[in-house]
């Protein structure tokens, strides 16, 4: 058994300090140590995208990062998307556009699209489909997912237009 490392990180705005086994993955840490089971683990080797989370502003695989590596990092998981006002725009659009079927891939899809839309509020459908190639939906419900993202992008642009 290896020695535990004290790790302090912020998850969805709340700071946690835990003694962590260095072999524990960040996604397992969220689920087992913090009880945040919204992050799903599918393949556990970086292919399926179900465990996608945002670390310091960038979307990463929760299964390919060790929890100790997230020391002093800011992590957002799917539980952090909804605010006090209810679901995020993207979550709302997922509901409207029937973008989830069994729901297993949904947390990863939401985190990936949240990161993409934050950087590029004007994505083309082709761009979204290419970027989403790192998230697999075995229900093959991609049409609804892409539609939801395009809907949010359009409404973000509309808001910007109003502000201007």
């Amino acid at each position: 058994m290896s020695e535990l490392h004290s790790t302090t990180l912020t998850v969805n705005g709340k700071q946690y300090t835990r003694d962590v086994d260095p072999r524990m993955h960040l996604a397992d840490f969220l689920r087992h140590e913090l009880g945040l089971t919204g992050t799903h683990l599918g393949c556990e080797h970086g292919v399926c995208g179900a465990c996608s989370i945002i670390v310091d502003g960038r979307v990463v695989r929760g299964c390919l990062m060790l929890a100790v590596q997230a020391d002093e990092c800011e992590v957002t998981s799917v539980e952090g998307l909804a605010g006090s006002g209810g679901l995020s725009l993207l979550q709302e659009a997922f509901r409207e556009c029937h973008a989830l079927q069994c729901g297993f891939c949904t947390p990863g899809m939401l985190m990936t699209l949240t990161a993409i839309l934050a950087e590029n509020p004007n994505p083309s459908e082709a761009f979204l489909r290419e970027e989403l190639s790192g998230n697999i939906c075995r229900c093959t419900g991609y049409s609804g997912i892409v539609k939801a993202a395009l809907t949010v992008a359009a409404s973000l642009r509309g808001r910007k237009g109003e502000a201007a």
Partner: protein
Amino acid sequence: MLSELDGAKLIAGGQSLVPMLNMRYVFVENLIDINRVQGLSSVERPSPDVARIGAMTRQRDILADPLLRDRAPVVGEALRFVGHLHTRNRGTIGGSLAHMDPAAELMNIATLLDATVHVESTRGGRDIAIGEFPLAFMTPQLDADEMIVAVSFNLPRAGHGWSFHEFAQRHGDFAIVAVGAIVEVEPDGLTVGDARIVLSGVDFAPQRLRDAEDILKSRGPEATGAAAACAAGVEAISDAMASGAYRQHLARILTGRALSQAFDRARGASLQ
């Protein structure tokens, strides 16, 4: 630490190493995280025609780098095939080269650009030419106490043509065959000043197609078909994904496409 601890391994972005740990292909006693080591993650230009990429530069930042976009666009073209947004956000160039996966696009690009790998240890530093870097399957010429600190290469001449093509089962998967090409065409449009073609996925290390390069240099862009035919003659591995014969077939087709596109781009650049 690397020279003192037993069974120690560096972890950079972890996008090759962690899957291997997860699958129990690799066991380490001590993992040394170099993610917070300063000064290893930038693209620099030590002289006007040289680019030097720090080992810990994330693939995503290399993809967005303005110097490389402008002077070596083949790097970005190849990086689009490397994993996905998530893995490029973490994965580094040094990590990719250190693993030397036969399908790794960055090994192909480093070979195509005739890069030099800079390594350091407590014993001092040394530079390794990319041609000398591969030793065996997934094994680069690195001693246990050495770490890659940067990769540098001469920027290709302005107006060069370039292309990168890959065949994989799905986007972001391991390449069954990938080809990178760079061509420099003289102003007469008929003489090829320089041609470099690299195949990867066919063997444990990327292969320069020197025969094909010589054909282009002696016979010009019209000899693209003959040059591509050379690609079918490479030694190619057979595995569960594809037979050697199929890889050779793909090598010929992809080399032909890459050269056509590279020459089109070189012509396009000369018309501007």
